[in-house]
């Protein structure tokens, strides 16, 4: 699989994502945000971090980086795009995903291990993972409080676009297992065409032997089986 990881000024998870794909034997490259060539990828990663210092709104300014125009065109052609954390925020700001990531209800930056439940196997990112599977994937953000209006929420539910929800270790969706106030505990969604994923948890931080959880691997394995 050819993977292009975009680096914005302020990205800080680009090398983690790059490293994970490299370690899994993929052809990965880092693409500078001012470039206008995605280098023919199978998958584009918009990584976590603080693009443009989170000025104005998280992800709002990254939208105007030259490479994002290419990412939008790639996604519209059906290309796979995965936005993690700040990447999710950028995807909502540039209109590839619906909704908005607001400030956490607690106003605090939250950095912790988090259980998320896989809601559907019907996506390239969750293919082969049984719905209800609980994954331990770290989160690290201050603006992860997913919000969408009632009409948008209904579409997400009707079209089965919610891929991950915050849950307890047993997979229950409760208020106490919701770290940031997200509507309906939403942690990750995909686009109507199912080729664009945005998620606040960091699977690239739970996919190597050196960290306590390796659950993020399931998402990369799903992508590998989809692209093959």
């Amino acid at each position, binding site marked *: 699989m050819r993977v292009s990881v975009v680096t914005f000024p302020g990205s800080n998870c680009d090398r983690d994502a790059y490293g994970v794909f490299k370690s899994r034997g993929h052809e990965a490259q880092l693409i500078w945000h001012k470039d206008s060539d995605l280098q023919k990828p199978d998958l584009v990663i918009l990584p976590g971090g603080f693009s443009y210092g989170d000025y104005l709104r998280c992800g709002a300014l990254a939208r105007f980086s030259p490479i994002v125009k290419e990412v939008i065109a790639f996604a519209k052609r059906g290309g796979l795009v995965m936005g993690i954390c700040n990447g999710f925020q950028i995807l909502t700001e540039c209109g590839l995903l619906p909704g908005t990531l*607001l400030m*956490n209800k607690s*106003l605090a930056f939250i950095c912790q291990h988090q259980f998320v439940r896989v809601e559907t196997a019907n996506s390239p990112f969750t293919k082969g993972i049984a719905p209800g599977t609980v994954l331990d994937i770290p989160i690290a953000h201050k603006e992860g*409080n997913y919000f969408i*209006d009632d009409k948008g929420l209904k579409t997400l539910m009707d079209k089965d676009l919610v891929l991950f929800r915050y849950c307890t270790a047993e997979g229950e969706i409760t208020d106490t297992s919701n770290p940031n106030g997200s509507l309906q505990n939403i942690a990750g969604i995909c686009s109507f065409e199912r080729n664009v994923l945005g998620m606040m948890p960091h699977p690239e931080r739970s996919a190597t032997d050196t960290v306590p959880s390796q659950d993020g691997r399931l998402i990369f394995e799903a992508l590998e089986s989809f692209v093959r």
Partner: protein
Amino acid sequence: MKENKSIDEISSLKDYAYYIIMSIGKAMLKAKIFVQLKASVLDPQGKAVTNSLHNLGYNDVSETRISKYIEITFSSDNPQEVGTKVEQICSNLLANPNTESYHYKIEVME
């Protein structure tokens, strides 16, 4: 009316027209823009401030909403042209239509 009268002191339309005429050609326009969370969107910062105000004894405070205030200065003296641009700037960048609304006024800089 004196030319150096502050725009905040102008009360009549006539004074305002005079102010604009005197300013044209040398003036710059400033857009004063407010970006607010829509009423339907929870504002955790506002809620925290309300709690703090209650702790300070202001128990009759029922709600606080935090907004953004942005000033943009234009080297143009054409209010219509600037108005069109400000509208575009607000809808394209400054406000997120999912969660925020905006309003603004355009003033001649002193």
